[in-house]
């Protein structure tokens, strides 16, 4: 039997972690952390020692607490409160050794009496108990580990440790609750003959054990075979990990435990539980899916699409109505601004769109920079407070004005287009043209909603919605740009004047007016119009 030094050391370390119980050591009363809190209604001292246990003494709202328990009462400003606060005043400046010494040396002031004195004594005792170094508890008999390695000694041991790192957890499980004295045999067979006795735990790793004598402790076999002969006796448990037991009688006073089987059982249990959970999850998913599908073909299913269509149409119409009403407001209060913006959007849509896109990108930087620039001066700060909410509102108002101006142009275009029913749009009435334009721009969405009732038209519906969004964005950008170019319609944007177009527009208006005013006597009017055209 060889006792390799390095191997023993390594294994001793491993087993030390696995087997040995925590030996009692002297706990030093080092104060690692201190907290002193003083407020109007409380004065608290909280200490944490190197061993991890805390001490918490506080006088809080008329009660005295030691480690969270109420031990008595005091009155704010009484002698006890004053004495405790004085002590904390000293403790604030100190740490560790001097702090512990000061607190330990503290004793209740002589002027305290009655309940207060008793409470102060309890605090003193708590401080003494916590801060006096504790006696080390009686050390248990020194644990011992004897290691025996078969084959190539050190090399075999190291190889066994490194090569079977995965087995360490099994070994740990096998050695659970093992006694302090361990005799470990690695890679060799062990025989305990009749009449022989082993005191402590016998551990055999990668080897066979034959026991005909007595073991006053556990027998642990990992990756091997255990033969218990007739007349053998094991006072503790027999623990087998990846090992086989042959038993020809003998006595095992403890239990025979198959560690790996236990692990396997546990694994199986976990696996079964997981499987069951997965199954129930899938079942509930399926149930939901089935419910959804079955509800899809319920009595109301033919009407569901219709309801959705009606809902969508209602949404569209409300949007049109709201935008139209806003347009009416603009026509009533700022007709010239609307005209100027609409004219700019019509004359230079490309330029307006580019300005609109640039303006959109610059909105946030301008907002932020403006706020920063205003924030630097005292005068600017109140302005900044107004700037922060008003700038986004102004931007939204500009976008709305621009959109409605473009909508008006769309309405005029529809009026001129000659489509069926569009001739009913009165071009001379901006309210008409705005409503018509908004409706025209919303037409894609309306048609997309109508297609909801038709099955298999999902793709077209998506296409129409996309087109509607794109047209909306373009209209918004052109309008916003036109608003920026014309300073919200206050400044007419100079552009090339198309005299022919202006003349034609003037002539168109004249003709319409004539037609309306000479209804019923159209002969001369028509002649007059033709005469003008000739001219």
């Amino acid at each position, binding site marked *: 039997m060889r006792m390799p030094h390095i191997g023993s050391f390594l294994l001793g370390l491993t087993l030390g972690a696995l087997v040995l119980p925590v030996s009692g050591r002297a706990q030093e009363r080092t104060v690692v952390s*201190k907290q002193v809190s003083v407020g109007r209604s409380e004065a608290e001292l909280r200490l944490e020692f190197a061993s991890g246990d805390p001490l918490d003494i506080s006088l809080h709202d008329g009660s005295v607490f030691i480690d969270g328990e109420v031990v008595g009462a005091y009155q704010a400003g009484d002698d006890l409160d004053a004495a405790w606060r004085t002590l904390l005043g000293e403790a604030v400046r100190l*740490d560790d050794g001097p702090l512990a010494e000061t607190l330990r040396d503290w004793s209740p002031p002589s002027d305290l009496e009655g309940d207060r004195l008793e409470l102060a004594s309890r605090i003193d005792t708590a401080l003494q108990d916590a801060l006096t170094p504790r006696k080390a508890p009686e050390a248990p008999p020194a644990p011992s580990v004897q290691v025996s390695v078969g084959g190539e000694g050190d090399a075999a041991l190291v190889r066994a440790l490194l090569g079977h790192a995965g087995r360490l957890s099994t070994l740990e499980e096998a050695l659970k609750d093992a006694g302090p004295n361990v005799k470990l045999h690695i890679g060799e067979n062990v025989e305990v003959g009749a009449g022989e006795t082993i005191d402590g735990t016998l551990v055999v790793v990668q080897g066979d054990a034959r026991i005909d004598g007595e073991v006053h402790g556990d027998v642990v076999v990992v990756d091997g075979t255990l033969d218990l002969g007739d007349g053998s006796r094991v006072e503790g448990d027999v623990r087998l990990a990846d090992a086989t037991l042959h038993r020809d009688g003998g006595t095992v006073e403890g239990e025979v435990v198959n560690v790996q089987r236990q692990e396997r059982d546990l694994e199986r249990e976990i696996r079964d539980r997981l499987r069951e959970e997965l199954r129930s999850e899938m079942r509930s998913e399926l149930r939901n899916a089935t419910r959804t599908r079955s509800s899809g073909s319920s009595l109301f299913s033919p009407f569901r699409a219709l309801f959705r269509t009606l809902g969508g149409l209602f949404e569209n119409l409300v949007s049109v109505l709201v935008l139209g009403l806003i347009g009416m407001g603009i026509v009533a209060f700022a007709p010239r601004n609307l005209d100027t913006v609409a004219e700019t959007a019509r004359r230079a849509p490309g330029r307006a769109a580019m300005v609109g896109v640039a303006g959109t990108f610059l909105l946030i930087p301008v907002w932020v920079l403006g706020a920063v620039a205003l924030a630097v001066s005292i005068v600017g700060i109140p302005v900044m407070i107004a700037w922060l909410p008003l700038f986004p509102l102004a931007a939204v108002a500009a976008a709305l004005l621009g959109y409605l101006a473009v909508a008006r142009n769309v309405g005029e275009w529809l009026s001129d287009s000659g489509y069926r029913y569009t001739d009913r749009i009165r071009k001379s009435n901006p309210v008409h043209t705005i409503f018509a334009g908004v409706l025209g721009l919303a037409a894609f969405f309306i048609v997309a909603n109508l297609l909801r009732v038709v099955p298999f038209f999902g793709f077209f519906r998506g296409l129409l919605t996309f087109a509607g969004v794109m047209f909306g964005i373009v209209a918004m950008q052109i309008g916003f740009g036109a608003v920026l170019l014309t300073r919200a319609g206050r400044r007419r944007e100079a552009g090339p004047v198309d005299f022919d177009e202006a003349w034609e527009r003037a002539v168109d208006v004249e003709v319409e007016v004539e037609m309306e005013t000479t209804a019923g006597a159209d002969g001369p009017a028509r002649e007059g119009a033709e005469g003008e055209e000739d001219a």
Partner: protein
Amino acid sequence: MRSRSALSTLAVAVGVFVALPHALGAQDWRTVTMSRQRSGEDDLRVQVTYGAGRFKVGPADPGLLYRMQLRYDQDVFEPRVDYEGNRLHLGVESVGSSIHIGKDRGGEMDLQLARDVPMDLDMKFGAVRADVDLGGLALSRLELSTGASESTVDVSEPNSLDMRSASFEVGAADFTARHLGNLNARHIDVSAGVGEVTLWFDGDWRQDASVSVSMGLGSMELRFPEGVGVRLTKDSFLTSLDSQGLVKRGDAYYSLDWERAKRKITIDLDAAFGSVKVVWVR
């Protein structure tokens, strides 16, 4: 009826005005002192957060990992100390969701940090008057972020470690950093929003360094010690540069002794609005 409601409104208004000073005066101040002993820390990642009040940072006595003294309104704030592994988080945080405005309402935080523990320091403070002395700390990295504050950062003693980077992020503040050479940093990043910033590049320069300075709006003063070579490149919008003692060559400004200087600082300046002034100090 109307007169009664007007009277009651008036009574409420008077009540508010009468009660307001009392409410403001009824702050429940609490003083807390916390300290922890060192226990073989090899390195530490320290995060410090502080909202409003006076803020002071300095080195701790030997043997201490930190000592923090706080004075705060316990109805509004609560202290925070988390120490786990090598992470230490110190500071105060708001109780509830109330908003607190003002930079000096009587709150104080005095923090001392271990001298010789290699430290990765991240400090964030809001509306405070900060007096930060990093001299004597062993800093491997520094991040300082401040909101609307009057802050002075001084590196009064050289940093014993080679610092990877130091970053100062300043919001709307009056910010002064002294002895930046003592940081022993390879790269210093200063990002200032609005305010007045003064950077002293004095101290013990033990290696060449690059400095990135960006400023939104305000005035900045760069103070260099004589003997240190300075190369400054500028990318600005509406910023005036008083490049005293610097000579323009190509796209950059150079100090007169740039070629001969033992230690060189390369400054990359990016400023939007304001003024930048270079000052040489003996």
